[in-house]
C-alpha cells in the first residue's frame, strides 16, 4: 500500500511539476475570464447611455424619473427626461440632448404599445429602464403582496397516475445535474485518461517495466498510476470549479437561476458517489489498453474506444424522459461507462428506489475492482512485450500469469 502511494505521488508530482500542466490549467479560466471581460467591455462600450426622453399622452405617469447614475462603465442606468410635447422631444433629439424619445400613447392601457423615435436603435438597457419606469408608475399605490401575486407565475407539480414519473419546478435543476455530472466525467476521464495512457506506455518506451516489477507488484504499480493520474484530473477540475464558483459569485446577478436551484442532498450526493468508481473503472480501462500497445501513437488511437461509450446516454435523452424505468435506461445505468450520467438522468424523471440506487452503486464498485484487477493482469501480460502489441485474449493466457 505504501508503494502504491509512492507510485501515485510520483505520477501526480510528475505532471503537476510540469509547466505544461499549469499552462493547461490556467489557460481555460484565464481564457474564459478574458472572453467574459471582453464581451462585457464590448457590450458596455457599445451601448449608448445618453438620456432618453419620454412624452406621456396617457396620463399614467405620476412619478418623476429619478436621477440616474450613469457614471460607471458597467452602469445599466439611463437618465429619462420628461417632455410635454412630441415637438419638444423631437427638438431635443435633433440637438442631440437626448438619443431618442418614447411616446406613451393615450390608449396605452388597451394597446400596450409605445412609439420609439431614435437616432440610434433601442438597446436592452434603454428597454429595461423604460419598462421598469412604466411598470413602477402603473403599480403605484398597489400593496407589495398584491404585486407579488400578480408577478408570480403558478408552478405545476405533476405526477403520472402510476406514481413512477414526476415533474416539478425543480425539473430544470434536476436535468442540470446530469449535464454537469456528464461534463465532470468527460473532463476528468479525458484529462486523466490521456495522462494514464501515457504513463503506462512510457514504462514500455523507457524499458522500465522489468526494473519496476522487481520493486513493486504489478497491481501496486497500476493502482498507483491510476490513483495518481485521476488525482491530476481531479486537481484540474477542482481548481476550475473554484474559479467557476468565484466567477458565479462575482457575477451572481447575471446567473440568478444558478443560486435558485433547489436541490436535495441526494440529488448531488448520489451522482458524485457514482463518479468515483466510474473514474476508476474508466482509468483502469485506459491503463489496460495502454498496457497492450507499444507506443504513444497507438495509445491515442485506442482511447477513443473508451471515450465514445461515455456519450451514449445523451443520445437517449428522450428515452430517459419517456421511459426512465425502461430496459435501456436500466442497462445504461448499470453499464459503468454510462452509469453516472444515465442514473442521474433517471433520477431527474423518476423516483429511483433506494434499493436500486444501492444496487447500481455496488455494481459500479465491483466493476471498478474488476477493472483494476484486469489492468494489473494486462500490465503483467504486456510488460515485457516492448515492441509487440498484445491481444486482449493474451491477458488471460497461462503464460501471462507471471507473478
Amino acid at each position, binding site marked *: 500500500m505504501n508503494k502504491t502511494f509512492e507510485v501515485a505521488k510520483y505520477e501526480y508530482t510528475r505532471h503537476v511539476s510540469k509547466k505544461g500542466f499549469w499552462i493547461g490549467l490556467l489557460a481555460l479560466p484565464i481564457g474564459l475570464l478574458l472572453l467574459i471581460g471582453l464581451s462585457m467591455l464590448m457590450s458596455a462600450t457599445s451601448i449608448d447611455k445618453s438620456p432618453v426622453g419620454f412624452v406621456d399622452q396617457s396620463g399614467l405617469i405620476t412619478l418623476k424619473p429619478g436621477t440616474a447614475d450613469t457614471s460607471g462603465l458597467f452602469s445599466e442606468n439611463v437618465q429619462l427626461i420628461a417632455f410635454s410635447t412630441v415637438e419638444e422631444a423631437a427638438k431635443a433629439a435633433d440637438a442631440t440632448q437626448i438619443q431618442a424619445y418614447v411616446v406613451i400613447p393615450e390608449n396605452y392601457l388597451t394597446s400596450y404599445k409605445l412609439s420609439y423615435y431614435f437616432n440610434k436603435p433601442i438597446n436592452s438597457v434603454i428597454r429595461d429602464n423604460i419598462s421598469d419606469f412604466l411598470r413602477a408608475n402603473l403599480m403605484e399605490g398597489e400593496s407589495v403582496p398584491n404585486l407579488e401575486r400578480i408577478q408570480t407565475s403558478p408552478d405545476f407539480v405533476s405526477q403520472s397516475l402510476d406514481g413512477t414519473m414526476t415533474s416539478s419546478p425543480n425539473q430544470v435543476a434536476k436535468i442540470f445535474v446530469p449535464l454537469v455530472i456528464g461534463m465532470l466525467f468527460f473532463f476528468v476521464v479525458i484529462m486523466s485518461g490521456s495522462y494514464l495512457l501515457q504513463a503506462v506506455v512510457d514504462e514500455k518506451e523507457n524499458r522500465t517495466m522489468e526494473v519496476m516489477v522487481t520493486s513493486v507488484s504489478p497491481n501496486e504499480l497500476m493502482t498507483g498510476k491510476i490513483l495518481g493520474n485521476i488525482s491530476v484530473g481531479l486537481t484540474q477540475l477542482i481548481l476550475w470549479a473554484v474559479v467557476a464558483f468565484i466567477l458565479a459569485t462575482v457575477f451572481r446577478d447575471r446567473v440568478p437561476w444558478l443560486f435558485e436551484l433547489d436541490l436535495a442532498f441526494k440529488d448531488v450526493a448520489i451522482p458524485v458517489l457514482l463518479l468515483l468508481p466510474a473514474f476508476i473503472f474508466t482509468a483502469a480501462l485506459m491503463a489496460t489498453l495502454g498496457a497492450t500497445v507499444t507506443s504513444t501513437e497507438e495509445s491515442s488511437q485506442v482511447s477513443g474506444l473508451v471515450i465514445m461509450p461515455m456519450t451514449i446516454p445523451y443520445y437517449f435523452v428522450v428515452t430517459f424522459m419517456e421511459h426512465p424505468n425502461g430496459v435501456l435506461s436500466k442497462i445504461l445505468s448499470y453499464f459503468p461507462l454510462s452509469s453516472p450520467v444515465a442514473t442521474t438522468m433517471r433520477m431527474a424523471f423518476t423516483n429511483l428506489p433506494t434499493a436500486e440506487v444501492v444496487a447500481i452503486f455496488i455494481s459500479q464498485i465491483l466493476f471498478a475492482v474488476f477493472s483494476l484487477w484486469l489492468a494489473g493482469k494486462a500490465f503483467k501480460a504486456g510488460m*515485457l512485450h516492448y515492441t509487440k502489441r498484445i491481444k486482449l485474449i493474451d491477458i488471460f493466457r497461462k503464460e501471462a500469469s507471471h507473478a
Partner: protein
Amino acid sequence: MSTITVDKINKTFGQLKAVDDVSFEVNPGEIFGLLGPNGSGKTTSIRILLDIYKADSGSVTVLGGPMNEEKKNHIGYLPEERGLYQDIQLEKCLTYMATLKGMTKEAIAAKLPGYLEKFDLTDHKKKKLKELSKGMQQKAQLIATLIHDPEIIIIDEPFSALDPVNTQLVKDLLIEQREAGKTIVMCTHQMNQVEMLCDRIVLVDYGKVLLYGDLQEIRKKFTSNQVLIETSGQLPENIPGVAEIRDEGTRTRLIPEKGVLTQELLKTLIAHGVPLNAFEIAVPTMDEIFIEVVKGGNNYHE
C-alpha cells in the same frame, strides 16, 4: 546456507522450451556467473528467480523461502533491457527508484550523493536522463541497483557501454560487495570478466545446464597437457613428443603426443637448446571452455 536455490525449474512458451530442468545454488559472499549464448534461457531463468515469470514446474528459494513482495527490497536487479525514465532529472529518477525499494527520504539523502560522486555523476544530477550519454545512464542504472544495499545483486552485462576506467570501477565495486558478504549473480558474455570475478558458474544452452561448479575446478577439469612457451630463438620443425606446434602470436602452443608428460616436454626443449623465456601449462580460457561446451553440447557437472 545458499541465498538462492533453483531446483529443477522448467518453463515453456508455446512450442519453445526456454528452461529445461535447470538447477543451481548461489551462496553468500560469491560472484556467480550465469553464462550462456544468446537465447539460451539465462534471462528467463532470472525472471523466474525474480518471480516475474512463474515456472511450469520446479521451485526457487530466495533468502530462505519463496520470493515475495517484501524480498524485492533486498534485491538489486540490473536487467538486460536497461531502462530509466528519460524525461525526468537523474536525481529525481534515482530517488524514486530508491523509494520503491523501501528506502526512506533520509536514507536516500544520506547515500545518493556518495554514489553520484563515486560514479562521477554529481554535476549531472539535475539533467534529464535523456541528456546523458549511454555510459552515464549505465552508471545511473548501477546506482539504482545498489543504492538500497541489497543482499542479492543480479546484474546482466554490467560492463556494457562502460569505458575501461568505469569498467574497473564497477569491477572494484562488485568485489567490494562480495567482500561485504553479498550474493551476486552476473550474466555476461565477457569471459575475461568471468575469469577475473566469478567464483562459481553455471553455463546454460537451449535451456539446459551444460556446466556448473567452481570456476577454478572447471578450468582445471578442462586443462590438458598442452603448454604455452615464449622463446627468443627458432623452434625446430620437429620436436620429439610434440604432435602439433601452433603459433599464437607472441606465444607458441605445443600439443604433446598422447602419454607425453609436461616435464618430459620441458626436458626435450632444453635438450634441443630452445631458449625459453616462458613455459606454462596452458589452462584453457573461459572463452575456450565456453566454445567447447556450447559446440559440444555435453553436460560437465562438477
